[in-house]
Structures are given as structure tokens and as C-alpha cells.
């Protein structure tokens, strides 16, 4: 089996790929990267928690112009995963306003980003309508 590596460290691969966050044990605020203290309550203890893989599309844009080398068009958005907002692309649907709707139900999906010289496959994530 090909060895896999997640695109980012808050994506956990395996049988049920999912996202994880650092949650402040005092107030519950969640962060996808490290914090010395909670931006909300200044607490210093964090626990790693799983983020729901289903949510609603809270905001989106269809990017037609991006930095050189970034394939367009693509749909960028914010998904409300049962109380935790996640930045992600909307994937596995046509990138147009007829197929992408505010408030639509979406779920986490993974895809292959590419394979490196050692045969390791990088796996990214997005959210697809369901």
C-alpha cells in the first residue's frame, strides 16, 4: 500500500479521515494551529479534539484569479461543522453558483494532492455536497 501523508497536520487519515483541533480546556475555543495561551480566555491548557465531518456552507466564493500556479476556478468557503468553523474548498461539484449554495449541507472528503519521489502520497481535504 502506498504510504500517505496528510496535506496539513490537523487532517487525520485512516479509515475515517477527520479534522482535529486544539481545544482550550477552560473555555472550549478551538484553534487549528498551536497557541501559547487561548486567544479568548488566556487559558494555557489545550486538548486535541475531533471536529465534526459534516456541516453547512456558511460562506463561499468562486475564485477565478489566484496566485500563479494555483489552478482556477475553485470554490473556497467556510463550513460550520456543528459549531466549529473550518476553512476549506468545496469539492466534487461544479464550481458555479448553480451548484454551490449558501447553507447547503456538506461533508468532509479527501483527495490525492500528488505523490513525491519516495512514493508518498499527499492527501488533502475538502467538503462535498450530500
Amino acid at each position, binding site marked *: 500500500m502506498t504510504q500517505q*501523508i496528510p*496535506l496539513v497536520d490537523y487532517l487525520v487519515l485512516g479509515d475515517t479521515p477527520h479534522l482535529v483541533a486544539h481545544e482550550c480546556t477552560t473555555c472550549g*475555543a478551538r484553534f487549528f494551529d498551536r497557541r501559547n495561551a487561548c486567544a479568548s480566555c488566556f487559558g494555557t491548557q489545550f486538548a486535541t479534539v475531533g471536529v465534526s465531518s459534516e456541516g453547512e456552507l*456558511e*460562506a463561499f466564493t468562486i*475564485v477565478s484569479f489566484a496566485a500563479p500556479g*494555483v489552478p482556477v476556478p475553485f470554490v473556497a468557503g*467556510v463550513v460550520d461543522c456543528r459549531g466549529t*468553523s473550518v476553512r476549506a474548498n468545496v469539492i466534487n461539484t461544479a464550481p458555479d453558483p448553480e451548484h454551490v449554495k449558501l447553507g447547503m449541507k456538506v461533508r468532509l472528503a479527501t483527495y490525492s494532492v500528488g505523490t513525491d519521489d519516495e512514493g508518498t502520497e499527499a492527501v488533502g481535504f475538502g467538503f462535498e455536497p450530500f
Partner: protein
Amino acid sequence: MAENVWILGIYMTKFGKHPDKDTVDLAAEATMGALTDGGVSMKDMGILAAGNLMGAGLGIGQALQKQIGQTGIPVYNVANACATGATALRTAIMAVKAGEADYGLAVGVEKLSGAGLLAGGARTSESNVYTPSGRFGAVAPVDGRIGTETMPGVFAQIGMQYVHEHQYGEAPFELFARISEKNHSHSTLNPLAAYTKKMSVEEIMGDVMIAYPNTRPMCSANCDGAAAAVVVSDSTLKKLSGEQQRRAVKVAASVLTTDPWEEACQVLPDVNTLTRNAADQAYEAAGVGPDDLDLVELHDCFATAELVHYDNLKLCEPGAATDFFESGATWRDGRTPVNVSGGLESKGHPIAATGIANIWEVCTHLRGEAKDRQIEGARLGLAHVIGLGSACGVHILEKAA
């Protein structure tokens, strides 16, 4: 009780392409314009606050002094994204208010013509062996794979989020295009705007799509420009001529905020809470309310942004920004004219200049010197900027009694 602070002199250069001038030339033109407008000279200035975002770290303040006059005064080179100009002005105001200087000078300058899209880094060849790096342990660039770092895309989402939260249906594209139509229409009366072409809704919607629903004319225009202001204390102003006192504009409120923590604010920038906080603080400091404003210059870096700031600045009832716009209130003949300069979408957005140029626009109306685009009888105006990251500047300006 700290003294009131006044804008004594203020100036903005023509916004647009200035291929033969560098940032120092533009900053010098704006600064000397502001000094002349105020009837003072570099010799009078007790502090200089200067901003040039793209050249942050190069010391634009000292370079400016070498161009127009070195007197040894303290220089504060500031950078606060698109709020850089407002930050420079606020720095000068604080120095005067604190009694450390009788006169303060603030300048913002940018050369952005041809800068193109402000986005994340270009994606070049990717590593041959995936190695996690950075705060997210990413093995490949994330811009375009995990959302977008382009400014038009970020602000598109901010507008779409507002439309979603307030259930304004599924066709916001035309709504945002009509906001842009208003600002482009306003720009035809502003000779200092980078673009002064009236555009129909059809032309705006049919133009090049950048990040849905923002097409090119719905995006702020990259251009060159500078603006500068001289501020003065109450007690010093009283010693000046009647003409200087008559044209001085009172800084009724000067506020700078950053974004307090909110759920999601580190996922999609929250430009709302800090603007609402700044507006509340500014109205309280000035002892006025949104209904008292005769004109507003707000940060329409994209058409999608203008909508949310109607609400954030309390120009309308909470959640009613769309209805407010539909009522015609924000056109120049409406109840609360917004961006009669043409806004960033047509006047242009030379980043560090913007937060002083919007003050210039308001002051010019309060002085009754706005010629063809004069809002008759204007006595009170508000200027707002947002720098992503985020910083929000709100200034309320009042005509001299």
C-alpha cells in the same frame, strides 16, 4: 481633560498612475500640500507619523524629511495593513492630545500601479519529498487547496456570509454589482479619482470575474497616491488666523481597534466586530449618532465589503443593510451618502494613503470646498478603514462652529 485636536491642513494627490514619481516624491507632494493648506511649515511640526506598507521597514518618514526638511523631530513609521494611514493620523493625534507636540504631521503613501492581485505566494515547484513545515505542518502550499488567500476571495466570503446570515436569498450578485454601480457613478465627479467612468450594472456584472461575486470593477483599484494631514491642538489653533480657524476641522473622534476573539475569527477574518466596536466608541466620544452624519467614507475594498459596513457602522438597523441600500440612502442624494468620492473601487486604494485620503474627502465637504460633488451643508462626517489582520480606524470629523 485632554485638548481637542483639529485637522489644520490636509491634502491628497491625484490617485492613479505616477510612473515618474517614487514614494518619496508622492509623500513630499502630499506633505507640502498639507503644510501649505494649513499655513504652516516643517519647522512647526513636533512629530511625524508615516506609513508606506509595501516599503515598511525602509523608513519612509526619514526619507520624506530628507526630501522636504530635517528638523530632528521624532518619526514613527507605522504599518497596519490597509489601516496604515489611519494609524499614522491617529499616532499624530495622540501625540498632540498628550501634549507632547503642538502640531503633528501624518502621511501615507503607496505605489501600487500594476501590482495585480494581492494574494498568497505564487505556487512554484513543489518539494520532491513531502516534508511538513510551518504552523499547520503543511507538505504543500495550502492557498487554493484550503480556501483562498486572495483579497477579493476573502472579502467575497465576508459579503456572502452576511447575505447568508440575514437570509437575503440566493442572488446577491446583482445586489453587490449595484453597490459598485453607485460608487462608479459617484467617481465621475471626483477629478482626483483613478477611474472616473460611469458603469452600468450590466457592464459591472459582465466584466472579468475575479472571485464570485466580485468582478474586476467591484474590486478596489491598485494605484499610486499619497495623502497627508497636519493636526493641531485647541490652544495652538486659537493663536492662528481667523481663516485658519474657520477652515480647521475638528476631530470629534479618533478610534483604532483590533478584532477581539470570536468563534471563526481565525478562520475567516472578522471585519465586523472590530468595526462595530470602533463605531460605538467613536459615536460616544463625539456625542453623536449615525443619523447625524452628513456623509460617510467607508472601506469598500470590495463591493461585498461595503454592504457589511453599512450595518457595522450602525448606518442601518441590525441586519438591514440590504434594505438600507435598496432605499437609495447611500447614493449622494440619499439620506446618508456613502463614498461620494467614488470609494476604493474607483477612486483607488494606494494602501497606506487610503486612511488619510478618506479624511481629506470628508474635510473637503465640511469646508464646503468639494465643488461639483459637494454635499450641501455638510457639518459632520465619518471616515472608516479596515486593515486585514485586523485593524479598524474610525474618525468622526466636525465642521468648525
